[in-house]
């Protein structure tokens, strides 16, 4: 059954070594897996497990020391910096832990950002795509708000809209709930689950084991190797969890 689905990510024995002084740090010691279209995968591990290095590989920000990484069928290892920049621009939607919005800039302008680096989009098309992405994440009424006028949750929604605006092959989230309170974190998970249901492929890198309960698959890293790769047949609903939370106290 799995073979019928489209493979969007394939890692073949990916290793990544860093030379620090005279020592070689083996951040990834040979990682292989496939991710299929429409999966919601959490990559989970403690700090030092190699998950950041793996994220950089998946995000085409870095290339493997050996092994090969195929993104949507394209081998990445031998690509130049500029080729990878273009690949990121077209195929990857990044959501960062601390939102990384441009300061003093409106929601629309922030969301438009990836499309500025894509010549296929005119200014008008850019704006339309940005408005649609913002509506999809429930910020249709905050289009012209500047980043410093928004709450953490709103900023993260803008960041997610920005990741979606180029219609990416994969949505790559790095500790996307790390800076948010419990309630807002669940709101984000609701949004991710909604996007998953709409057919987006999501990779969510986190140190928090709880998040794995809401994804369809969990890859657990330890010391640069895969410790566990399990499918979750009992996906919890983030919406229910949110509803079960105690109501915010009003003074």
């Amino acid at each position, binding site marked *: 059954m799995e073979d019928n689905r489209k493979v969007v990510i394939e890692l073949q024995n990916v290793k990544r070594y860093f030379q620090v002084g005279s020592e070689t740090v083996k951040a990834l010691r040979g990682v292989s897996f496939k991710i299929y279209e429409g999966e919601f995968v959490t990559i989970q591990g403690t700090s030092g497990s190699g998950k950041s290095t793996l994220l950089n590989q998946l995000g085409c920000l870095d290339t493997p020391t050996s092994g090969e990484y195929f993104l949507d069928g394209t081998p990445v290892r031998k690509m130049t910096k500029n080729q990878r920049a*273009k690949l990121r621009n*077209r195929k990857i939607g990044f959501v960062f832990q601390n939102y990384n919005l441009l300061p003093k*800039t409106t929601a629309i302008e922030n969301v438009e950002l990836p499309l500025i680096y894509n010549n296929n989009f005119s200014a008008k098309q850019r704006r339309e795509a940005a408005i649609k992405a913002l509506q999809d994440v429930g910020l249709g009424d905050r289009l012209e708000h500047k980043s410093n006028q928004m709450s953490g949750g709103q900023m993260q929604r803008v960041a997610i809209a920005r990741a979606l605006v180029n219609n990416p092959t994969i949505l790559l989230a790095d500790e996307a709930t790390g800076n948010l309170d419990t309630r807002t974190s669940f709101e984000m998970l609701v949004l991710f689950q909604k996007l998953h249901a709409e057919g987006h492929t999501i990779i969510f890198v986190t140190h928090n084991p709880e998040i794995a309960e809401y994804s369809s698959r969990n890859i657990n890293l330890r010391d640069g190797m895969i410790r566990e790769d399990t499918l979750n047949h009992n996906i919890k609903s983030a919406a229910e969890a949110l509803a079960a939370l105690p109501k915010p106290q009003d003074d």
Partner: protein
Amino acid sequence: MNILNLFKVAFKAVANNKMRSFLSMLGIIIGVAAVIVMMAIGQGSKESIRSELSTMGTNLLTIRPGADMRGGVRQDPSSMQTLKMEDYERIIAEKKLVTNVSPEVTSAGQVIYGNMNTNTTLYGESAEYLDIKQWVIEDGECFTEEDIKKSAKVCVVGKTIVDELFGEGADAIGKNIRFKSIPFRIVGVLKSKGYNSWGMDQDNVMIAPYTTVMKRVAAQTYFSSIVCSAITEELSDDAIDELTQILRQNHKIKDESGDSDDFTIRSQAEMMETMSSTMDTVTLILGVAAGFSLLVAGIGIMNIMLVSVTERTKEIGLRMALGATGLVISLQFFIESVLISLTGALIGVLIGVGIGDGLIPMMGMPSSVPFWSIALSFAVCTVIGVVFGYIPARKAANMDPIEAIRHE
């Protein structure tokens, strides 16, 4: 990413940091304004001197005694007595490229009328002098050939003398004034020429027949100089050659090298060139001094841009992660520094033109902004933006997106 988008991004970056952008522009603004004002003053002075000199007659040629060596000692030209009546007569007889000729004898002294007196210079000239120096008789007439023959004690005076001796607007024709106790009858009053650019009052003159001045005032048999006008300004050089030939023949000078000529001939055109080139040098020095301030301003921009790049490391990392190539990032900072420098140039030009074409002329000083100085300012500032934007832009472009985006 097209260039228009890059401009928008750079413009926004400048607009988002108004205070900082303005401060880094300030150096450029002051530098450009200084360059333009300096150039305007240089150009203005040059033009004013030019027009000054041309009111004296651009085809004017002046023959002076001089350059004579006696026993290895170069003689003081004013004490030399080499320009004589024979030279004047010979020039009159043989001139082809010269129209008007006037010998010149001068004497400075007090002039008195009644209980009023003033100091002036008495010029002994021929009647043609007025045409040579482009003087116009406003009232009365010039002295005649007859007056010259008879060494008549008549004179033509400038406006200042009339004002000083008779009061403003008074009728001076026919009045007798005394120069060094010699009475002169005023036959004509000259139209005012005003002050020249050296601050000399050109109207403080008294012109009398040269014969009168030679015999009755200066008691000398030689001329201080001979002034003539060439047929046209362009023929000045040929006229000088002609006069040189005549005078050499007259003075029996065989040497063709010109070393032993006992006279020198200067043309007004030559004077103007000397003045212009002097002014050009002064303008250049002023301009270079102001230009250095632009260089310093450029370093200021580079400084600010480097800080800006460091401060925006995270933004650069984000843009790179979202698909900006190093080239695009470097262009963004490039355009930003050129934008700062050109906006500074624009404001500087406006201020410079305001001062150079508005304020300084209003204060009565000659000044005019030459167009090329504006073009030059923009060109220099573009170069400054590019040159000093290069290092910050390269620094930004070489960042590693992984490290940049985690930069705190």
